């Protein structure tokens, strides 16, 4: 019938790169500096809840266009780490940099500007339940970007087209499948032209047969050069696409390296051990 699972291959990858932001900087020196700096860096993030140490000096740095994958057992702190980066969970200590600019999370205005440039995809989708797919994508364009209803809807529609859901625009989240819901969430995040995407186990809440369509979106973004940090249990996906894997346990990154290094047969890494047990479960 309709091929909503397919993405238009015609979409140029350049569309994904927030070119305007850098181009706008007239000072070439500044532009050069921002190219040298990692797109996103989180340094020594620590977080305790009560007396429990959830994150213990976790750091990550993402070059532009890089896809890094965070894996590890549940309770390792992956989700907390991602949410500490954009301040949804305020970290106790540590620093976050976007293109070399340090973020002061105490400054609400600064934090909002940061979040507008760093999109987030949640495990349980978190689409706004009372809004149609179209309005889910359009609302931030109106409330944050100050776009008119007409402009925001046009932009939202093109984002929905990009994830193959233009024909679902008028439906509410409860009328969509899990996979479709998560794809709308991608459209919502992408409409803000993010420089970086944080993905918190984007496929973990999905039925197995719906995982593919969401991974396809991520693959498409990765090919387009989107900078992404993704917590996941999808090892085949990580192996194929990740530039680096961070293995977390008990709130610390205990191993990191390229998939080839960490997952080589007989490498004896914790990562390999964890993944082989994960494969057994699957």
């Amino acid at each position, binding site marked *: 019938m309709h091929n909503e699972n397919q993405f238009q291959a015609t979409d140029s990858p350049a569309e994904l790169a927030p070119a305007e932001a850098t181009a706008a900087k007239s000072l070439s020196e500044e532009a050069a500096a921002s190219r040298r700096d990692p797109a996103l860096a989180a340094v020594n993030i620590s977080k305790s809840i009560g007396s429990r140490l959830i994150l213990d000096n976790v750091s990550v740095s993402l070059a532009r266009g890089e896809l890094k994958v965070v894996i590890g057992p549940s309770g390792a702190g992956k989700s907390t780490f991602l*949410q500490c980066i954009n301040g949804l969970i305020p970290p106790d200590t540590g620093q976050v940099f976007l293109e070399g600019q340090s973020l002061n999370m105490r400054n609400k205005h600064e934090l909002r500007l940061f*979040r507008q440039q760093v999109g987030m995809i949640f495990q349980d989708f978190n689409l706004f*339940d009372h809004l149609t797919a179209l309005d889910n994508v359009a609302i*931030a364009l109106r409330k944050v970007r100050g776009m008119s209803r007409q402009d925001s809807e046009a932009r939202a529609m093109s984002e929905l087209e990009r994830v193959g859901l233009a024909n679902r625009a008028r439906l509410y989240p*409860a009328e969509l499948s899990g996979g479709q819901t998560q794809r709308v969430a991608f459209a919502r995040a992408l409409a803000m032209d993010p420089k970086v995407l944080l993905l918190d186990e984007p496929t973990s809440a999905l039925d197995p047969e719906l995982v593919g369509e969401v991974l396809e979106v991520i693959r498409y973004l990765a090919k387009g050069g989107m900078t992404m940090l993704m917590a996941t249990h999808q090892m085949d996906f990580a192996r194929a696409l990740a530039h680096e894997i961070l293995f977390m346990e008990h709130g610390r990154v205990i191993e990191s390296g390229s998939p080839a290094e960490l997952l080589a047969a007989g490498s004896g890494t914790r990562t390999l051990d964890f993944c082989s047990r994960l494969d057994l479960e699957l």
Partner: protein
Amino acid sequence: MQEVIFTIYESLPYILGGCLVTLACVSVALLIGLTLGVPLAVGQVYGAAPLRFFISTYVWFFRGCPLLVQLYIFFYGIFWPLFELSALASSCIVLGLTSAAYQSQIFRGAIEAIPQGQLKAARALGLRDSNGIGFIVLPQAMRLAIPGWSNEFSILLKDSALIYLLGASDTMARIHQMATTTNMHFAFSLLAGVIYFVITLVGLKLLRGLEQKIHIPGYQKA
């Protein structure tokens, strides 16, 4: 028997006039309760500690004290001596302040029933908290609150029967007056019961209709 029916028939325009007073008073009170109750609820869920303390004190005061006592305190202590407010106006305000306390708890429960991910997602997009609460959380919470709010409407309507004790000329005042002058206490009490029942019924049906009208498609049936 015929005489009773005739007397009631004769007095109906007078008593129905009282119904209008009752309806006006309850509507104003519900509106005051709504406009204060929503911010009180938001403050209690998202506010800083001092604000939360102030709000819970407010709620405790109005929930912990009989309505009649409040009506007396505010009317004889403040509204009449200081502002020469009429019994009806004072009643509207007191009922409104009381209702705000109860309504705030209805809305607080509804806000807390909305998954936290909703506000998180709004924040993650860079929305201000005020926008996230106003455009994401509250529209969902208000839908959830309608059944509880219907309850508050029906309780407030019946509580409003107390305002005749301040001298407001509402349904109950006129019923009481007719009952004493004609000495037909039973018949007029029955009439009062029927009137309050019908208003409650119509109001609840309307609210039920509203609930279904703004029901989110695909959600489990309201």
